[in-house]
């Protein structure tokens, strides 16, 4: 369990994290969602005791990170895929890390195997691709078999297979009863991985809720209709009370009538249907709607008071 209470971090005049309060419960994957520069990484660094908050607190099972007796055995954090010395081999990187917390060195080969790096264990980690580096970072988080795991943008730079691997992996960790907290700016990824969401913008909490809730909160369902009989459909659907928008590219977007209703109507009217797809409001739509005012770096607004660059 991770609890953040009134967490605040300022860099000069900029407030990177602003009075943030949220909980990350065990047993589910909690997504940490926000636009770039919204304070996700800063928040994660404060949870892991790397940065000190200006006020408020972040606790791991009720304790500040710095008070944990065996941090690596309690928390696994992947905040930076390249947080290892490039000249050291993957195995040697994990070995010193194991020594810090008196973890049996046999764990090193176990976790290397778990992430699929056994064959490159004796290669210098600096030669690794971003995907391999991410795997090494994930191996490091597993080393102490911790109950709490934090991942900052773990799928960045991964190929589709790697992304799927991480996704299943995170879900498996949560299913084992662990606390899993994953940040991302990739909304579609979060919709597949996370059960719960903590959404922030400009360092402030926007929502703390389940993914389903978050989507339905902003959702209006629509149905995509592809047909050669567009004009006839527009007349018929409008007459039936549905709202029809003629999308560019030859499809119609129908609101106010479910796909089944449209199909029935087509049968009655003898109109041809080539495709009928319900479009539920995506997490992306919900996110854009909620964070519309909270995006720090937006093209064309030319934010004059540039905040210090934050690594995401």
């Amino acid at each position: 369990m991770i609890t953040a209470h009134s967490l605040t971090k300022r860099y000069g005049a900029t407030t990177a994290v602003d009075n943030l309060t949220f909980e990350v419960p065990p047993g589910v994957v909690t997504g940490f969602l926000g636009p770039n520069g919204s304070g996700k990484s800063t928040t994660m660094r404060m949870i892991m005791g790397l940065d000190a908050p200006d006020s408020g607190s972040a606790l791991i099972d009720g304790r500040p990170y710095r008070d944990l007796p065996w941090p690596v055995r309690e928390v696994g954090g992947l905040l930076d895929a390249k947080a290892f010395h490039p000249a050291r081999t993957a195995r040697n990187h994990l070995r010193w890390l194991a020594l810090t917390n008196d973890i049996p060195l046999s764990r090193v080969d176990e976790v290397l195997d778990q992430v699929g790096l056994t064959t490159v264990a004796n290669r210098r980690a600096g030669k690794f691709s971003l995907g391999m580096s991410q795997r090494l970072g994930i191996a490091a988080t597993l080393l102490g078999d911790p109950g709490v795991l934090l991942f900052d943008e773990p799928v960045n730079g991964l190929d589709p297979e790697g992304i799927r691997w991480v996704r299943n992996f995170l879900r498996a960790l949560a299913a084992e009863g662990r606390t899993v907290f994953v940040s991302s700016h990739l909304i579609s990824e979060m919709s597949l991985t996370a059960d719960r969401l903590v959404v922030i913008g400009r360092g402030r909490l926007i929502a703390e809720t389940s993914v389903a809730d978050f989507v339905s909160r902003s959702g209006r369902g629509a149905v995509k209709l592809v047909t050669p009989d567009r004009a006839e459909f527009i007349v018929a659907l409008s007459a039936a009370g549905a709202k029809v928008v003629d999308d560019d590219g030859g499809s119609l977007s129908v609101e106010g009538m479910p796909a089944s209703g449209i199909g029935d109507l087509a049968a009655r009217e003898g109109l041809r249907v080539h495709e009928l797809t319900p479009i539920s409001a995506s997490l992306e739509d919900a996110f854009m709607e909620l964070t519309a005012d909270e995006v720090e770096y937006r093209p064309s607004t030319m934010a004059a008071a540039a905040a210090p660059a934050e690594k995401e």
Partner: protein
Amino acid sequence: MTQAIQTAPLGHYRVKHVARAEVAKMLTLRSTAITLGFTVAVGLLVTGLVTNAALHHGPDYYLGFDPTQAALTGLIVAALSGGVFGALLITGEYSSGTVRTTLAATPRRPVLLAAKIGVTTAAMVVFCELLSFVSFFLGEAVLSGGGAPSAALGSPGALRAVLMSGLFIALLALMSFGFGLIFRSTAAAIAAFVGVVFVLPLVMHGISEPDVRYLPTQILTNSVMATVHVGPGGIIRPLSPVVGLLLMVVYAAVVVAAGAALFLKRDA
């Protein structure tokens, strides 16, 4: 609450755990072997060249000649590479991002710092003492082989000079480690180290010649390495070996303390 996935040992991580990890870190970097290997090779080469150049001179040359000091000259190379080594032990962590992994694994910074300083000091003392003895024996072998005046460990002041020289280089490396803590960047830390150790004496010569004796390189070559003080002596009157060494302890302590103060309160 989070269920216990595994059972951790009682107690908590201590300096000994972190120290073991720091030793493992040091031994698994090629830069360690390269830096120390370079130091041995070039240091001994310098000692060989300097002692060889002291052969076959007239009797006047050997008036005030200090065979111990000559045989330890190679340690000046170690002063430079020891400085590089000391700085890299911490700046290498910052430049690669390893420091965040380190601090996440052992977040109590005083514990981490104690382990790092302990391991750095121990490693440098052992290495520099070994190098100091090897350099001494090599130099004396060259001198005695060429028929020039030479010293043995039993000669007055010789053992003291050999032991203190190794210790002195270790202190220089520790000071450089302190610069690494302060600047967190390899280039800046090494620039500061070279500035203080190798550039400042040149500047000081122009400002206040007698005060050059308080500077590390002067202490090393003319107080710590030397066993013979003969002749009229210039404007620079060397400090006694003990005073010189203690002054170096103060220098290293001040820089490391400043670095430690920053390290303890700075965000990673």
